[in-house]
């Protein structure tokens, strides 16, 4: 069996005295769509941010593509990575935020080109070509010159997805990508994500869209209070939850 894309062993994270993650164990296989659900404040975003080292874990081990996140191991000692090494690790992990976080002073196409040009040193002309291609893929070929403020929420989120894809990531993290959207705009973003899943991208998706999880997801983990309460295939967990807490949560969101 091949190495999993993400492996977490007893991942803990505290902010001062506040323990947010209390020992997360899970594995995300290559090419799968891994859904993370749970009540607000259960630590889903924090876990996602640990995966690309936007947060440093307090205890445990976390591997992406077989490499420790944020540390180098030599013998039995751990060395913290330098900023450059951390940045290099993040290049291969795309992230999509709840609030889009597009760069407002750049047009859609400039948003998508920025990282390839600045981080990978891709020539501008080639980066632009690729960016236009990606924007067309998410259905925004006619919006390449629009500033984020001129786009709807759904369009902004699709630009954000294109921006992450421009770095050719091997793993995509989605943190509630549709939670800030008007209901009628949710579908267009989920469609892009579905298409991405079909192309075989490994995706970790924090979401409250149970329909999407059931239909597209390969695994689903229910988190509460910083621990994994229940894990399994989405259809099993969603139709026949074994734990009382899962049942209580699902009855609220379904």
């Amino acid at each position: 069996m091949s190495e999993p894309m993400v492996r977490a062993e007893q991942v803990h994270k505290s902010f001062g005295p506040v323990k947010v993650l209390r020992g997360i164990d899970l594995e995300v296989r290559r090419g799968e769509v891994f859904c993370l659900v749970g009540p607000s404040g259960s630590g889903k975003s924090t876990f996602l941010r640990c995966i690309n080292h936007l947060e440093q874990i307090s205890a445990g081990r976390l591997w992406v593509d077989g490499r420790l996140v944020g540390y180098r191991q030599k013998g039995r000692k751990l060395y913290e990575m330098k900023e450059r090494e951390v940045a290099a690790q993040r290049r291969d992990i795309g992230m999509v935020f709840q609030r889009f976080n597009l760069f407002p002073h750049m047009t859609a196409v400039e948003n998508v080109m920025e990282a390839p040009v600045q981080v990978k040193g891709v020539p501008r002309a080639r980066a632009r070509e690729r960016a236009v291609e990606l924007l067309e893929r998410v259905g925004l070929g006619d919006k390449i010159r629009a500033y984020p403020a001129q786009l709807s929420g759904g369009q902004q989120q699709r630009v954000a997805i294109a921006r992450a894809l421009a770095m050719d990531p091997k793993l995509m993290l989605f943190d509630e990508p549709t939670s800030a959207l008007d209901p009628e705009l949710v579908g267009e973003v989920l469609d892009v994500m579905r298409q991405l899943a079909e192309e075989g991208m490994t995706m970790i998706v924090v979401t409250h869209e149970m329909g999407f999880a059931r239909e597209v997801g390969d695994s689903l983990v229910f988190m509460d209070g910083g621990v994994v309460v229940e894990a399994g295939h989405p259809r099993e967990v969603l139709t026949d939850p074994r734990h009382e807490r899962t049942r209580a949560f699902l009855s609220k969101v379904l």
Partner: protein
Amino acid sequence: MSDIRDQEPEPGKAAKSGAGPGPVPPVSAGGPPAGPPVGKVPPEAVKAIPVRHYGRWISAAVVLFLLALLVQAFRNADIAWEVVGEYLDAETVVEGALNTLWITLCSMLLGVVLGVVLAVMRLSANPVLSSVSYAYIWFFRGTPVLVQLFLWFNLALIFPVFDIGFYEADMNEVMTPFMAALLGLGLNEAAYMAEISRAGILSVDRGQTEAAHALGMSGAKTMRRIVLPQAMRVIVPPTGNEFINMLKTSSLAYAIQYQELFLAGRNISSRTLAVMEMLIVVSVWYLVLTTVFSIGQYYLERYFARGSDHRLPPTPLQRIRAQLTSFRVRSKVRGASGEVTV
């Protein structure tokens, strides 16, 4: 009749189109109908007698009267206006104005660049950098510019030789009035620009830094490409004010013999004794310089506001053009309301 009218059903028609009897107009108990009958208001432009603003007329008259008194006073004052006219474009005065412009540009450049560096230092996680920045701001904001100008100008008293390893010179030759003015004004300005830049950097949403980091951008690149351009929207307006302040504050450099506008005026008036006249000449020049800068600032603000709004307000030029065509626009609006159709 226009087709617009045909498409929009009138309230009266709509009420009658139902199969049953039309709605009964509201009638107050035992009296005539309250208000106009429903569905009878014609859909035309509102024509009403505007409110009369008597207060405005009175206050305008008072202010105009006071202005007239002021003009009268100046006409009777003992000012040789022909002297003002004569020196307005005198060579030394123009040269002084150019020097004022030059020292302002140079000191602001020094102030802005150093100020941004100080702001980034101040926000850095490195305690040495942030304390040094703090101490710098504390010192340069806490002492008067005039004192700082004299400190630089008299530096030769304590360091007679300027020596930085590969270059050595007599301090009096290095510390010319221009150098002293540049250091005095620029380093002082950096302290203020540091605070302005810090506020600008802090105004940028944290999500922006996170998005850039998640894409693999380094801290320095994130600052330069993502944070600072957005901080500019907050930084530029107060910097414009600093620029205009600097134009005027640079007149203090006359005290260390820098040949700027004010000193040029002083030199002439000490010869010709036309004190007030030269002060007026100098003031006119300062007004010209500050006005030109204000216009530049306006366009700079527009540039850095790009992407921040759906539509930018029109520039003055665009507004004038729009006003020239506004008659046509207004008649179109009326046509749509159904009164006039050309």
